[in-house]
């Protein structure tokens, strides 16, 4: 399987400057959990639509505060709707959480390499998400379901900290009701009234229904979770060139110019964030990178 997943074109809409910030209006704000929210955005500059590949990200600019990379979490087949799901952790993301419907936010992008949704046609696809990692993977699920006949089994394994922190509940309910998508969820901890699974996400892998000889896996979550997930997938017989992970590093330019996001010999913003595991295996487990 070659890694030909799409890179950003380094050109904005209609060939405009790749670094150009476009103003977007917040059309809707969705509270996902206590600290995580989704923004539905529409362009203010008269341009229409926003195309992206699953796994790509935008630089979101909260004017006067700063800019952060956030993955696109919406449906890639719907170009009239741009969605971002953000966990408020620090200066910019907390300021973003305070914005209101009608406010303006700056957008640069889409940037980065996408999940290899076309290359894995014909395979079983195992999607493993941990915590906020479901946001960059949701477009993958939308895409796979929109092209369902092109894939074998599709398995979603999702783990999060507590039942209260489960993202995209409506989607998960719909997905669990489908016969052509196997969805398994677990939480790390819960109290008395929870009826679902308890245990870390890696515990779902041993039993997940996929053919290891003919499967590809896409993983997104904290790096520790991804490391242990890779180990479990390897135990199931998946080979490294069929495993894809999404890496995070601090970013500034987002387009491979400043070097802020260097990971080994690569720049996460341009060569990632999605990497084929065998291509970063060496640095994936290395300390202090």
């Amino acid at each position, binding site marked *: 399987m070659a890694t030909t997943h799409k890179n950003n074109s380094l050109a904005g809409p209609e060939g405009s400057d790749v670094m150009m910030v476009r103003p977007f209006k917040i059309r809707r704000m969705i509270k996902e959990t206590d600290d995580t929210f989704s923004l539905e955005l529409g362009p203010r500059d008269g341009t229409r639509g926003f195309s992206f590949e699953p796994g790509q990200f935008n630089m979101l600019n909260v004017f006067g505060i700063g800019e952060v990379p956030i993955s696109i979490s919406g449906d890639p087949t719907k170009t009239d709707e741009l969605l971002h799901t953000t966990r408020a952790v620090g200066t910019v993301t907390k300021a973003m959480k305070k914005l209101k419907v009608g406010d303006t936010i700056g957008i640069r992008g889409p940037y980065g390499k996408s999940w290899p949704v076309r290359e894995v046609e014909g395979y079983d696809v195992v999607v493993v998400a941990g915590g906020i990692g479901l946001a960059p993977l949701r477009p993958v699920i939308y895409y796979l379901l929109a092209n369902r006949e092109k894939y074998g089994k599709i398995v979603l394994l999702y783990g999060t900290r507590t039942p209260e*922190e489960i993202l995209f509940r409506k989607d998960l309910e719909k997905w669990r009701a489908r016969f052509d998508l196997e969805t398994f969820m*677990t939480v*790390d*901890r819960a*109290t008395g009234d929870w009826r*679902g699974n*308890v245990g870390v996400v*890696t515990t779902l892998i041993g039993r997940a229904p996929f053919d290891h000889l003919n499967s590809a896996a896409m993983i997104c*979550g904290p790096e520790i979770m991804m490391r242990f997930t890779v180990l479990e997938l390897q135990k199931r017989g998946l080979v490294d060139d069929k495993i894809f992970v999404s890496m995070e590093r601090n970013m500034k330019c987002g387009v491979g110019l400043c070097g802020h996001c260097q990971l080994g010999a690569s720049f996460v913003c341009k060569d990632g964030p999605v990497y084929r595991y065998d291509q970063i295996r060496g640095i994936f487990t290395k300390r202090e990178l």
Partner: protein
Amino acid sequence: MENLERVLAEHPFLKGLEARHIELLAGCTSNVVFKPGEFIFREGEDADKFYLIRHGKVVVETFVPQKGPLLIRTRTKDDVFGWSWMIPPYKWHFDARAMELTRGLALDGKCLRGKCEEDHDLGYELMKRFATLIAERLEATRLQLMDIYGDHS
């Protein structure tokens, strides 16, 4: 009995055991059914069994004063739970409760301890399987303790 032996032989946890060992295990095995909410064992009680789940879901939990039960790990179809039967002082360290109607097999630990002493091959086969299980639980517990989705992640 023949049916019980077949069910034991087909359970993933016991797969590969010799027929004579399956026969020995069958002599210590009974069918069990637990209603939703029913406790299978409670912390501090004698650990004289382990369980193979054939259908349903069980949660291993601990009771935290003023907070209620803290759910630690769920077990479902084809899982095994309970290994305190093989480690002195043979007491349960947690509670186990059926979350839904659960059917399975209970293997009598006292009976098995005797058989393992008599037949070390059987003891070794069981020990290998439980060692793998315990190692998997330990790794999962470490990950849980790391709180990987916490604020620092």
